């Protein structure tokens, strides 16, 4: 009963939180909600399959750019729809051609993809439209952005919970453990991976679209910043990428830590980021939640 009531109650509480904070506080809430969404959406595909994707910002940036290009031409819901479709189309094209790659090759490819998209858009803007930056003037309040992101994040976690109990979730787990066994057991590898990759990509794209009005001024180097991809990965890993609440658990403290670090140590911030990366991988390679579970089991067993 409590398990059933807790998530809606917590969601309601999170929804009224902006009423009680300053503009700066609201900014933090939006940032935290964004990274919870990104990390959870990333884990939807990568957490179970162990295909570590560094393409997060390729989709996130595409979402932001879709809004930048279309915000004056179309009503807002239609803009979001176009962003989602663009993300899905990109994920389909990329997924079909690359989900055969394993391990480090996929990591490198996904990183390259983000750079490629950034360079393509830069080239297009400079040579075809003759602009480098664009402005987003949308009639969306900061609270409105927060609520949309909160809804997207909640929907992502709910979707993940549903997938985890479905055939798709089981297929993803088996693929993550051993693709040979998965295929010989009757699992369609390509279709399974593609389905999860596209779902994940659509959410990442929507997150970029929803948060884009916060930038006001958008150019490729801003919205295709690779740090977003790295942060997303490390947040999900810290919390536990194959646990439902793991990515959210990792995202909130790390986001706050990064905010604080980048404000107080603007020059050495990337170095500290790197150290944190190494620390997480060394100390809790499985993530906090799985480590805690193991500890509890050992206690119970002792």
């Amino acid at each position, binding site marked *: 009963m409590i398990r059933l009531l807790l998530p809606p109650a917590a969601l309601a509480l999170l929804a009224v939180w902006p009423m009680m904070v300053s503009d700066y506080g609201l900014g933090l809430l939006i940032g935290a909600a964004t990274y919870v969404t990104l990390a959870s959406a990333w884990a939807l595909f990568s957490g179970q399959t162990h295909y570590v994707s560094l393409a997060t910002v390729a989709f996130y940036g595409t979402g932001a750019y879709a809004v930048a290009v279309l915000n004056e031409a179309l009503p807002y819901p239609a803009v979001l729809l176009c962003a989602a479709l663009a993300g899905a189309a990109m994920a389909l094209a990329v997924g079909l051609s690359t989900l055969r790659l394993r391990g480090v090759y996929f990591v490198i490819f996904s990183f390259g993809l983000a750079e490629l998209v950034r360079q393509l858009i830069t080239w297009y803007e400079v040579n075809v439209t003759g602009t480098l930056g664009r402005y987003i003037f949308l009639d969306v309040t900061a609270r409105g952005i927060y609520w949309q992101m909160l809804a997207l994040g909640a929907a992502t976690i709910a979707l993940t919970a549903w997938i985890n109990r479905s*055939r798709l979730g*089981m*297929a993803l*787990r*088996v693929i993550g*453990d*051993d693709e*040979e*066994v*998965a*295929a*010989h*057991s*009757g*699992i*369609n*590898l390509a279709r399974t991976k593609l389905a999860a990759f596209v779902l994940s990509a659509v959410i990442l794209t929507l997150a970029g679209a929803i948060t884009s009005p916060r930038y006001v001024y958008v150019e490729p180097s801003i919205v295709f910043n690779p740090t977003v991809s790295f942060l997303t990965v490390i947040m999900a890993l810290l919390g536990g990428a194959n646990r439902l609440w793991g990515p959210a658990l990792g995202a909130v403290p790390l986001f706050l830590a990064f905010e604080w670090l980048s404000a107080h140590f603007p020059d050495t911030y990337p170095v500290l980021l790197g150290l944190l990366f190494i620390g997480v991988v060394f100390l809790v390679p499985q993530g906090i939640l799985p480590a805690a579970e193991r500890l509890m089991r050992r206690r119970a067993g002792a």
Partner: protein
Amino acid sequence: MSFLEIIGAEKRFGGLRAVDGVSFALERGEIAGLLGPNGSGKTTLINLISGALPMSAGEIRLGGRRISGLGRDRIARAGVARTFQLVRILPSLSLRENVMIPAVFGRRAHWGREAERVAAGALDLVGLSARASASAGDLTYIDQKRLELARALAAEPELLLLDEWLAGLNPTELAEGVALIRRLQGEGLAILMVEHILDAVRALCPRVVVMNSGRLIADEATAAALSDPKVIAAYLGEEADA
């Protein structure tokens, strides 16, 4: 028309013909040994039948339907299950979860309680039902082999491909393993088994097919094959493992 028909199967790796024009057939419920010295192409042939490798030429049919050229998953759903020469279990999952995978994604596509029932039945067959909730990573090598067979059976296959499943068992376990395979065949499963333990082959298989350097050199009754000069010559210079 036979149940499994292998017609001119060929697999080239560069200049090497690992499987070179192999043809034979297997009936429903028949068990046959697949023999040959190391490197003769037995595992490659198993990989061709199960779709792990694409064929270079030839055709494989199951129940009259062409399965060569299909993906591994579709061949599995057509009713072909296999074990691996090097055991492949999923150590992070429980025994029950390991075995549920083909029950869920295999031919019958069970879900929920029905999948659990099929998985429990398969674990029971190999004598592992008492440990269904244990983690597969905690099993001994022999029990991992048992689990892998249970997983193949949970697919409810019509053709079972065993790649040296009996290798590494001690005499007691070997006797149990032989009895288990005999029981499976008695239930109507067609079985093709790669095996070096000739005593087990004699006990289980009335018929063997023998490969050497990718070619089929014998397809006959087991006793005849094992005294066939061609077969003996193929094994010479190579330590017979039995």
